[in-house]
């Protein structure tokens, strides 16, 4: 099992987003801490895209949303974009620790129907 970890990454400007990525075998676990909106989403996309570009063996993207205090359609757009990429390559995407508020946003957008939701990280990894 290979392992790699990012040092927290900090947005310039008003509000902060910290993204940590962790590679566990063919899984990429992305932990997001902060608010996913128009300001922070471009960096969220960039971090995931870079990881997917550099580790070609990744088949399963797991988003840990425990510390996502806010998400709107800009954040959702980035999640849906990553969902498309990973599933086109034959992989899968899951989300864990999804709050009621985030779940509602996923539901309204239809994402809840196509993405796997697990209570926690262990459940998601067990289902790989």
């Amino acid at each position: 099992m290979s392992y790699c970890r990012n040092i927290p990454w900090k947005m310039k400007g008003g509000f902060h987003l910290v993204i940590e990525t962790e590679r566990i075998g063919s899984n990429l676990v992305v932990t997001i801490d902060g608010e996913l909106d128009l300001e922070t989403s471009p960096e969220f996309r960039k971090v995931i895209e870079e990881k997917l570009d550099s580790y070609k063996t990744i088949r399963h993207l797991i988003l840990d949303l425990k510390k996502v205090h806010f998400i709107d359609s800009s954040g959702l757009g980035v999640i849906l974009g990553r969902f498309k990429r990973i599933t086109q390559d034959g992989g899968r995407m899951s989300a864990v620790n999804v709050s009621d508020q985030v779940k509602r946003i996923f539901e309204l957008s239809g994402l809840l129907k196509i993405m796997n939701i697990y209570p926690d990280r262990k459940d998601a990894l067990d289902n790989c």
Partner: protein
Amino acid sequence: MFENYLKLEFPSIPQNVSFARTIVATFAAQLEFTLAEIEEIRVAISEAVSNCVIHAYPNEVGIVKLELRAEDQLLTIRIQDFGIGIADIEQAKQATYSTQPERMGLGLVFMESFMDEMELISKPAEGTTVVMKKRPERGFANAELSRSS
């Protein structure tokens, strides 16, 4: 009758989206909204201000005006830009419709879902105004229950 208002003006830059959310949430907390309702308001504001940043002023930084009003049981939010405007409002409101390929066309849908009322007024080359209203669901009655012994 309880009454308050707040008028704001700021430039259409991405960092002001979270800013507007925080201000509106603080203002809305004067009324008897639940935390879940405040979250809904935060999403609606975030979408409306994001639209000013992305759509109203795609190639420049423009002015966004935000007006908040609390009148008794009602929160009214008015967001105005002086940008490119919307030619076909019915089309814009459709889910998944977006003039930007990367976007999902869900902003206006969220605004309608999360607020009690939403009105969109726009004229190409003049700008867009969104008026949204929301009442605390459990009403304002609780506010009069001052607990003291």
